[in-house]
C-alpha cells in the first residue's frame, strides 16, 4: 500500500471563460495561450511541482479536448509520477445518475473519492486562470502554524478596486472575521485570490453538508467559507505580495502579457529556481531576418520575423513578413502577418492569416474619444483579408 500524501492540489479548470469570447470557443480558459510559450494553466501546474506537490487533480468540464491533450501524462511538469501525479478529472456517471460540476465546491465534492485515495492531511484548491508564481508549501506551513481549518491566500489590492473582489476582514492575528463577496463599501483591501488550503477532514465535512443543504450555488466563496465562518472555524488569511493577475477578460489577458515587458513588474520567467514549465513542440530557434526591427518584445521558437515588432508577445511558429508592423500586440502560435499589414493593440489568435493591407486595432493616441478605444481581438483560425479593418474593441471570430 502506498503511503498517504500530506498535501494534494485540486485545480479548478472547468471554466468556460465566457469573457474571453473568441479565444475560448473551442478551448477551456486555462488552455488559453499566455506569455509567448505558455498556457495559463502552466503557472498553477509549475507552482505545484516547484512547491513539492506531486499529486494534482485537474477538474475539467468545458471543452476539455485541448486541455486533456496538453496535460497528457503530466511529464512536462514532472507530474508523471508512479503514485500520484497529475490526473484530469472530468464529470462522470454513477448509479445515481450523471451530473455536471455545479459549482466549485460541488466539483470537489464529486471528486472526493479521488482525494480520499491519497488520504491527505491538507488539500489545496486552486483556480486555473491566474498568472502568478507562488510557493504553496509556505501556504501549508502557515496553515499548520496557525492550526487552521482553512487558509485563504489574499492579496492587497488598491482601495478603488476592492469592490471587484471577495474581501477578507481580519483581526490582528490575521484570523478572518468577515468575508464579503464584491462589497460596495469594502472594509479592507485584502482580496481573496481563489487559492485555499484546507484541512481535509474539515473540508470534507463542509462539502457534504453543503451538498445536502442544496444551496444552488455550491461555491467556495458563496457557501463553504461563509458557513465555516458562521461556525467559528479557524480561517486565516495568508498575504501574498508577489505578482498576481486574473486573466478572466480580454483586457486583463492583454495587460498580463504586456506586464511581461515592463521592467517594474515582478514576474520573472527566467528564474532557474522557479521555472515555468510548458509542453513543447520541437521547433527550431527563431530566425530574425535582415530587415527585422525588434524592440522590447518577447518572441519564441519557430518564429520567422522580418517585419517591425515593438512591445509585443510573439508565440511559436509566427511569421511576420518584411513590411508588416506589429505594435503592442499578442500573436498566438502559427499566425502569419503578411507584408503591409498593421497590427496594433490587438490579440490575434492561433493560426490566423492577416493579409497584406489589413489593419487590426489602433493606438489610443490616434483616437479622439478615449471611450471608443480598446484592444482589437481576432479569434483562432481566422483569415483577415487585405481590405479588412478590425476596429478597437471589435472581436471577430470568423473570416473578414
Amino acid at each position, binding site marked *: 500500500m502506498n503511503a498517504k500524501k500530506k498535501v494534494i492540489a485540486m485545480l479548478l479548470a472547468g471554466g468556460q471563460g465566457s469573457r474571453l469570447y473568441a479565444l475560448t470557443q473551442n478551448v477551456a480558459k486555462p488552455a488559453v495561450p499566455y*506569455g*509567448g*510559450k505558455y498556457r495559463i494553466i502552466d503557472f498553477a501546474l509549475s507552482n505545484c511541482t516547484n512547491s513539492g506537490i506531486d499529486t494534482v487533480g485537474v477538474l475539467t468540464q468545458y471543452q476539455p479536448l485541448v486541455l486533456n491533450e496538453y496535460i497528457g501524462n503530466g*511529464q*512536462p511538469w514532472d507530474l508523471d509520477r508512479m503514485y500520484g501525479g497529475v490526473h484530469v478529472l472530468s464529470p462522470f456517471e454513477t448509479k445515481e445518475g450523471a451530473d455536471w460540476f455545479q459549482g466549485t465546491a460541488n466539483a470537489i465534492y464529486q471528486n472526493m473519492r479521488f482525494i480520499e485515495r491519497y488520504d491527505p492531511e491538507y488539500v489545496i484548491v486552486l483556480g486555473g486562470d491566474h498568472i502568478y508564481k507562488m510557493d504553496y508549501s509556505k501556504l501549508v506551513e502557515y496553515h499548520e502554524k496557525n492550526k487552521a481549518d482553512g487558509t485563504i491566500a489574499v492579496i492587497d489590492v488598491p482601495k478603488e478596486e476592492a469592490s471587484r473582489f471577495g474581501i477578507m476582514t481580519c483581526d490582528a492575528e490575521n484570523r478572518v472575521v468577515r468575508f464579503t463577496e464584491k462589497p460596495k463599501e469594502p472594509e479592507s483591501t485584502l482580496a481573496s485570490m481563489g487559492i485555499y488550503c484546507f484541512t481535509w477532514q474539515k473540508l470534507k465535512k463542509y462539502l457534504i453538508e453543503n451538498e445536502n443543504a442544496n444551496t444552488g450555488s455550491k461555491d467556495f466563496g458563496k457557501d463553504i467559507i461563509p458557513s465555516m465562518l458562521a461556525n467559528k472555524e479557524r480561517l486565516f488569511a495568508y498575504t501574498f505580495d508577489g505578482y498576481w493577475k486574473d486573466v478572466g477578460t480580454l483586457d486583463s489577458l492583454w495587460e498580463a502579457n504586456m506586464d511581461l515587458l515592463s521592467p517594474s513588474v515582478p514576474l520573472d*520567467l*527566467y528564474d532557474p529556481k522557479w*521555472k*515555468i*514549465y*510548458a509542453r*513543447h513542440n*520541437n*521547433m*527550431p*530557434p*527563431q*530566425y*530574425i*531576418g*535582415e*530587415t*527585422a*526591427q*525588434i*524592440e*522590447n*518584445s*518577447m*518572441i*519564441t*521558437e519557430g518564429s520567422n520575423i522580418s517585419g517591425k515588432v515593438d512591445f509585443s*508577445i*510573439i508565440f511559436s511558429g509566427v511569421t511576420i513578413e518584411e513590411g508588416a508592423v506589429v505594435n503592442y500586440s499578442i500573436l498566438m502560435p502559427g499566425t502569419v502577418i503578411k507584408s503591409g499589414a498593421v497590427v496594433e493593440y490587438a490579440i490575434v489568435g492561433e493560426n490566423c492569416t492577416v493579409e497584406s493591407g489589413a489593419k487590426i486595432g489602433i493606438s489610443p493616441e490616434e483616437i479622439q474619444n478615449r471611450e471608443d478605444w480598446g484592444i482589437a481581438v481576432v479569434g483562432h483560425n481566422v483569415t483577415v483579408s487585405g481590405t479588412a479593418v478590425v476596429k478597437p474593441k471589435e472581436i471577430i471570430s470568423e473570416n473578414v
Partner: protein
Amino acid sequence: MSVNNNVLGLVFASLHDSTVIELTKQRTMGSIMFGGRYRLIDFPLSNMVNSGITQVGVITKSNYGSLLDHLGTGREWDLARKQGGLHLLPPFSQNVGEGVYRGRLEALNNVWSYVEHSKCEYVVLSDCDYVANINFEKVIKQHMETEADITVVYGKYKYSEESGSCVDVLEMDEEGRVTAVLIDPLLSGECKISLDMFVMKKDFLRKLVKDAASKNQYSLVRDCLQPKVKEFVIKGYEFDGYFSRIDSVKHYYEANLALLKPENRNQLFKPGAPVYTKIGDNGPVKYGLEAKASNSLIADGCIIEGTVENSILFRGVKVGKGSVVKNCILMQGTNIGADCSLTAVITDKNVTTEDGRVLTGSDSYPVYISKNAKL
C-alpha cells in the same frame, strides 16, 4: 512504418572526436552543440525516429558525461520504451583489453551482444559528423530492392585536399555500385562522399565484425569496404538534400552560419520531420528597448539588450546594452556584458565577458573561447 520494427539503429557518438579537438575537450562528438538548440546526436537520432526506427543503440567512447545528461532516458526522442527504445552503450571491455575501441567494427564487437539480442533483421549505422535531415526508410527500401550487401549513403560535395581529414570519396559504376573507396585522395572538384551512414543485414554485419576481430582489424572503411569492393556488393544511395560536414572548428563555424540561409534551414528543419532535442524550459527570447537583431538564429531563454547580427545564439545567452555581436556563435549560457564587441567569435558554454571587452576573429579563423572562461 511497420517494416522498420525490423530495423535497429546504431549511432556512433564518439567517432571523429579528434577532428574538432577544441570542442570535444569536455564532451564527445555527439554532444557538440549545433544550430542554436541542438547537439549533433539529435540529427541521427531524429532521423532514425522519423524513419520509424524505435530501437537505437548509442555507442560512446569517452567524455560522454554531457551525452548521457543530454539523452537521459531518450524520452525527448520518443525512445523511452518498453520494447526497444534507447540504449546507451559505453565501452565494454569484455573483448578488447582496454575497452576503448579504435574503429566501428571493434566498437560493434564490444557491444555485439546488444545487437545480437535486438529483434531486427537490418541495421542502420550513423555517425554524428554530418548534419542532415534524411529519411532512412528510403535507404532501407533501396537496400532491400537492390539486395546489396551494404548500402552507403553519399552526397555530392565540393572536395579538395584541404577538405579535412577522413573524407571517404566513393567511385561508382553506372548501376550505383561502389567500385572504389578513397580516403582523403589527392583530388579536387565535386565528389561523391560517404555520409558515414550505412544499411546492412544484421547477419552480414555480424560476419564483418567477427571476421575483423579474428584478424585484429577494426575499421569498417579501411579493413572492409576499401579492400572488398569487388567481393561485396556495395551500393550507394544518393542523398540530395542539404548536409554539412563537421570536421574542423572552421567547418563547424561555417555549418552553423549556413543555417542563416533559408534554403539550408528549410531543408534541415522540415515539417513532418522535426529535429528533437532535450527540452530546456527556458522563457521566450526577450528583446530590450535598445535591442537590434538581424539575420540571426536565436534560441529561447536569450535576453538581448544590444545588437546581434549574422549570429547563432544558443539557449540562455545574454547580450548586454551597447554590445555588438557579429558573425558569432554563442553557446548556451554565454553572458556578454555591456559595451562589448565580438566579431567572428565562438564562445563555448557559460563563457562570461566583462563590460567593454573586444574580441575579433576572422571568418577564415574564428576565435574560440573555451567552456566556462571568464574574460
